[in-house]
């Protein structure tokens, strides 16, 4: 027993060391973001002599941090809310109404989940460009809704199937409408699915680069990944502020992760195993 415990302590120490090596890229960037570019180039492994936030200030201005942060925030929040709300309603529709058209659309949605974005992007940009709908946040909300709905409907469908109809029946007898029954009885039961789906969609949309890079064209619309790209391609030699910029981009999701850690890991597992 004793050797077993000692063995597991040794194993844990080794695992923590492995984790430290694994996370070295982050530690390097954090450490060097407090130095000047000169100090970084001379010795990237030295500890910063004092905590200087000048790099952060310079990154904040040069990458238009506030504006891109707000853009990312608005796009993520609105798109995720739209996906969650409308997927839940459609998932309910597909479970409770056994119509042929529902089965066909549901099947089409499942099939579409196998399609990579690459097959859609060229005609998508072409069509919406022809209609002069590019460079608008609204278009991006709509596109994220379209891309997010199949997986959302699929997830809600799976959950609502397990909700007994008897729960709703009594409400119907009392004369409650379909819509009211959905909001008062079904929606509150879906909370765990909402959290899982929200986590997956937030990580996807917050970090997405390709779609916004094709849709949002003017500088004032840029999201954080877009302005990170711009910042790096135009200041390629001044490393210190670049590293500070990376840290600032990571911090918002890191905060979310600290709060929702368990849900994120649960969400990934459930999302993958389906």
């Amino acid at each position, binding site marked *: 027993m004793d050797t077993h415990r000692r063995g*597991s302590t040794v194993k844990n120490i080794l695992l923590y060391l492995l984790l430290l090596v694994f996370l070295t890229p982050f530690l390097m960037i954090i450490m060097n973001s407090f130095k000047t570019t000169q100090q970084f180039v001379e010795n990237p492994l030295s500890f910063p002599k004092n905590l200087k936030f000048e790099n952060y200030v310079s990154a904040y201005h040069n990458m238009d941090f506030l504006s891109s942060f707000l853009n990312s925030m608005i796009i993520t929040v609105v798109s995720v809310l739209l996906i969650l709300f409308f997927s839940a309603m459609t998932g309910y529709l597909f479970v409770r109404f056994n119509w042929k058209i529902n089965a066909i659309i549901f099947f089409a949605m499942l099939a579409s989940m196998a399609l990579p974005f*690459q097959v*859609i992007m060229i005609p998508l940009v072409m069509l919406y460009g022809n209609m002069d709908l590019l460079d608008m946040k609204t278009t991006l909300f709509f596109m994220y809704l379209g891309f997010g709905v199949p997986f959302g409907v699929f997830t809600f469908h799976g959950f609502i199937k397990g909700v007994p109809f008897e729960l709703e029946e009594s409400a119907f007898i009392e004369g409650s409408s379909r819509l009211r029954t959905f909001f008062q009885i079904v929606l509150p039961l879906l909370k765990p699915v909402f959290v899982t789906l929200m986590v997956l969609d937030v990580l996807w949309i917050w970090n997405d*680069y390709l779609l916004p890079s094709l849709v949002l064209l003017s500088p004032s619309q840029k999201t954080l990944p877009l302005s990170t*790209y711009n910042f790096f391609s135009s200041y390629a030699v001044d490393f210190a502020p670049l590293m500070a910029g990376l840290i600032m981009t990571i911090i918002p999701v890191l905060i979310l992760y600290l709060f929702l850690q368990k849900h994120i890991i649960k969400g990934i597992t459930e999302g993958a195993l389906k």
Partner: protein
Amino acid sequence: MIKKNFLRNTGTFLVFGGPSIFAFIAVIVIPFFVGMYLTFTNWDVRSADTAFIGLANYIEVFQDKVFLGQLWFTLKYVFFTVLIANGFAFFIALLLTSGGRGEQWLRTGFFTPNLIGGIVLGYLWQTLFSQVLPYMGQKYGWSLFQTSWLTSTNTAFWALVIATAWQLIGYLMIIYIAGFSGVPTDVLEAASIDGASRKATIQKVILPLTIPAIVICVFISLSRSFLTYDINLALTKGGPFASTELATYHIVQKAFLSNQYGVGQAEAVVLFAVVAIIALTQSYLLKRLEVES
């Protein structure tokens, strides 16, 4: 009566399904079919008229040595990324399922790279490969790192593989952990009573019983690395001398910089077909190894 029912049902359909089905059709279904049509035309941003040209775009794709070369480069990149990411993820997950203290923290830690997107990830590793590692190589005399890995094709290839695998490991680890928790404890106990060594237990008991998790992980890592774009853009930008352009990078360039929509779309369809064939074959082959516990 029937008419009234029909009206009410249509109303329900539109209220509950309208917005999401409309978005789904307008964003995925229509562009998909337009895209398929596009591959048979010579559609070009500059020329206003579009002519039907049959399979000419596909023939051009298969005669384009540059694209075929990049497809081959992508295949090699996918192969090593999938192998390395799954190998590490499997063993880290194995070490993290004994139920010891602190495992939750370790899992959280290994998962962190997945919080960042490909652009940030690519620039993070670019800084490491172009500055930190060459510094260490010169200081400690490690010839492997003396020049930046991003300046030659061969090392830039490994830089791409490492950066991608680094992120995938934490993600796949989570799925492997879930897979291991499905291995019944009585089977493991029986193995240990029979005196099976740790290695034999992994090989003969755990591995066959976690085939479903392996299929999922290989599938996810395959499709994610086949479609890599952001990391490629931020880490190597296709360089040096356009030698590390993965398939998606090429397609984006072809379509949105050279404005060759038809050929670009045909390349995207070919890429999709390659991914689908490989992903389906692997799950078919791996599933045959599956056993019931």
